[in-house]
């Protein structure tokens, strides 16, 4: 029998707010345990939540970008369960009236993934095992960090589709400024619901839920493992048990969590501490109008308006900051293709050499635009320009000052070049003879000699021209 894998995703994304969802503690990553906490996010008795307005804005923005219907009225509910990472013993989430529903994401290749819903909720804390005591320590710094959970319909049929969706989601949310989507810091996490069924069957099989998937690699491998496990069970005539399974990165396998943890009756009910969220048409229109241009639109535009090759547009839009840098560069008068080349070559190279992220880069578009202009004007040759770039990259130094200080300006004085050319021709009669005998290689040698005399600061074009003239 041939089997089909059916997958639905629940993705948790941490929102890029400054403060937590229900209190004013910072959401900054890291920090010593329990130092980004207050009585509210630690669930102290008598404390009450107050909603961060930015959370609503970012959730709605994400909902709009994922083509969801935004709920005119939405509310918060309590999800009740005991665990030490949840100090109130309930998570404030949305069950009955989530903020957005019924969206769709085009993942390419003619495939669309339907979004079932998108809702706001608070993150839980972190539990750290103390091996010495063999006990667990609770760190509530992440507790109350705002999340959106994006739930898809079971529309995926392969790990590849899942990854394509996640990449699209990540790119979109980063462009929107909704989240930094750093998987290594847990700001994008995935639960995978998976079942298998015979190809052609319309019914869904029994599914399992896999948690703890924190990288694309883990997701792909877990999907492959779990699909194989379920198929083997069914082929042996056994049945799949509906349960939550944990992916063990080290063992490359999923295993069932204790049944106790599986007993789930969350007793959701509307949170009496939080009034509802009602969004006016004007508010939605305002957010819609201020949605930033997404990567796919930028790519299309770069190709159509500036004739950039697809490869270049992919590279440049791979990070929103790079794309913005690029657009600023072009706006300063830089030729788009020239700008793209510099970004793909030198900018990305320097970022990686310094272990920096594009968003942390100090270099301004104006600095690079100036450098490119100097090359274009023939005042700096390209190799020198690359050296200047490397020198000014980290601190966004002054290009003109650097060039002047180091005497790097290109020699475009044809008279000076002529004198040097004459000296070189006189000193290399053999090469001149070779060249006249048809050995073109000798020309390059002569150019090199001239450049050497001029300490590399001559314009190659000028040198070529003068040499050709002199050689007749």
């Amino acid at each position, binding site marked *: 029998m041939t089997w089909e894998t059916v997958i639905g995703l629940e993705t948790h994304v941490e929102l890029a707010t400054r403060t937590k969802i229900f209190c004013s503690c910072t959401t900054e990553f890291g920090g010593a345990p329990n130092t980004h906490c207050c009585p509210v996010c630690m669930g102290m008795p008598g404390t009450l939540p107050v909603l961060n307005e930015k959370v609503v804005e970012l959730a709605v923005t994400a909902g709009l970008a994922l083509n969801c219907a935004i709920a005119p009225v939405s509310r918060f509910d309590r999800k009740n369960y005991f665990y030490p990472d949840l100090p109130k013993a309930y998570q404030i989430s949305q069950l009955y009236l989530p903020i957005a529903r019924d969206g769709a994401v085009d993942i390419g290749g003619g495939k669309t993934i339907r979004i079932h819903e998108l809702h706001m909720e608070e993150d839980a804390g972190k539990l750290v095992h103390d091996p010495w005591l063999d006990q667990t320590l609770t760190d509530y710094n992440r507790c109350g960090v705002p999340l959106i959970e994006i739930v898809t319909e079971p529309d995926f049929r392969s790990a590849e589709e899942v990854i394509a969706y996640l990449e699209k989601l990540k790119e979109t949310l980063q462009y929107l400024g909704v989240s930094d989507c750093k998987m290594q810091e847990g700001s994008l996490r995935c639960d995978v619901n998976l079942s298998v069924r015979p190809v052609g069957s319309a019914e869904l099989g029994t599914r399992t839920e896999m948690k703890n998937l924190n990288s694309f690699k883990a997701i792909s491998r877990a999907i492959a493992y779990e699909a194989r496990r379920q198929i083997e069970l069914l082929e042996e005539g056994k049945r799949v048990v509906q349960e939550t399974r944990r992916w063990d990165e080290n063992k490359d396998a999923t295993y069932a969590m204790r049944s106790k943890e599986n007993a789930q009756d969350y007793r959701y009910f509307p949170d*009496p501490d939080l009034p509802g969220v009602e969004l006016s048409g004007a508010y939605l229109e305002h957010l819609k109008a201020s949605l930033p241009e997404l990567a796919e639109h930028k790519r299309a535009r770069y190709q159509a308006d500036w004739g950039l090759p697809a490869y270049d547009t992919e590279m440049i839009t791979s990070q929103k900051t790079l794309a913005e840098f690029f657009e600023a560069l072009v706006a300063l008068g830089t030729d788009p293709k020239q700008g793209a080349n510099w970004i793909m070559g030198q900018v990305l190279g320097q970022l990686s050499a310094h272990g920096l992220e594009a968003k942390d880069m100090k270099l301004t578009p104006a600095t690079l635009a100036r450098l490119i202009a100097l090359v274009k004007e023939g005042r700096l040759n390209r190799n020198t320009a690359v050296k200047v770039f490397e020198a000014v990259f980290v601190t966004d130094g002054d290009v003109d000052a650097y060039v002047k200080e180091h005497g790097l300006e290109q020699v475009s004085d044809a008279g000076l070049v002529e004198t040097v050319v004459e000296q070189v021709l006189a000193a290399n009669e053999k090469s001149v003879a070779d060249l006249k005998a048809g050995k073109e290689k000798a020309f390059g040698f002569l150019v090199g000699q001239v450049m050497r005399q001029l300490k590399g600061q001559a314009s190659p074009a000028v040198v070529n021209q003068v040499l050709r003239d002199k050689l007749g």
Partner: protein
Amino acid sequence: MELFELTALELGEKLRSGEVTREEAVEAARARIRAAQPANNAFVTVTEAPAPAAEGAASPLAGVPMAYKDNICTRGVRTTCASKILGDFTPCYDATVVERLAAAGAVSLGKLNMDEFAMGSTSETSCFGAVKNPWDLTRAAGGSSGGAAAAVAAGEVWYAIGSDTGGSIRQPAAYCSVTGMKPTYGTVSRYGLIAYASSLDQMGPIARSAADCAAVLDVMMGKDARDSTSLDVPAGGLLASLTGDLRGKKIGLPADCFGDGLDGEVRSAVLAAAEVLKARGATVEEFALPVMEYVVPAYYIIACAEASSNLSRFDGVKYGWRAEGYEDLGELYTRTRTQGFGTEVKRRILLGTFVLSSGYYDAYYKKALQTKAVIKAAFDRAFEQYDLLLTPVAPTTAPKLGESLTDPLKMYLSDIYTVSVNLAGLPALSMPCGFDSKGLPIGAQLIGPALGDAAVLNAAYGFQLDTDYHRQSPKGGDEV
């Protein structure tokens, strides 16, 4: 007249005029506490008086000694909810009302006994032992703010702050012959009140007179950015608005609150109170309020559901008491909660868990929320016709200690006249209106429309201008 027999406003006046010093007032209160506490057990924690508030506290109650129910968080002073599970929990924050009162010059002398987590109608479920009624020490002071009502009745403080989820200010006030007010839901910040049922909880004053209550509410009320359910409405000015003039006011008596189950002496006293209001110019009329039949079940479903969630945070991990002898996390939770909560609290947690659990939510919890809508609509209609409603506070006077705990359902049913007010979010006040043949106090309840707090206080103020039930002290004073 002894100092402790004064109203809070009268003492405030003497403090302002310099006739009595702040130290004398505090010492008088402390002497009363020393004398009364062994008998009535009103306090859980007695503290040293705080340093005087900043000069210029404008409240007419500046310098007047008072105390808080022990479910109101006080920075640096243990706050127990009268439960073993909270142990010596000492908040590092003040409730908003505590901040506001302190800024107005309130002098807190400590924390008051109550039913565990405010769940009870007699203040007997406290882990510190029952509160006893100063009018008859063999009887309950009422609950859950029993300590607050008893302390004011016994002259240990001039006013107290209680909380009222289903009658917990009004019913003990009635049992102890003091005046207690539950303001409109949302007018007093709940920040720092340890939640029992968040959609119903509201703090309010217990004092000798309606005027005292108005003065305290003038300080307590007002929008608080830390409580999302707090209403953005103008606060203050209640005391200044009191005239006692009831001419042209229409007062409704819901017939369904005067029927079966109501003690005859209580009925007579409340009807007599109606006559006093009439004499002040009000018209009084009976009307039918048939939703009364549904208020107790709707109340207990909603209150217990919220409580089951609110009390989940007490798990022995972050604060309070932790059981011993656990092998793993599950046992830590279960042992701590099983041994840390009393029977009534456990009963309500279980009931609340049941009505929210899978398969029963719609039949119970959702049904109760729909019933609440019906109850609110019924009150809205009543207030289209009447300015105020007058009802008994409780079906009987204070019961003997131990009598109520044997039959929980019977105890729940005794809340019938008070819980509807919480469900509908309305302001209501309990005022002394007589004594039964055993000499036990009787209370009458005035209910106003939402945000009609001033009208409620004004009617009670008028009533108290013409009566002196509120000026009587148990057994002539000293021998509490």
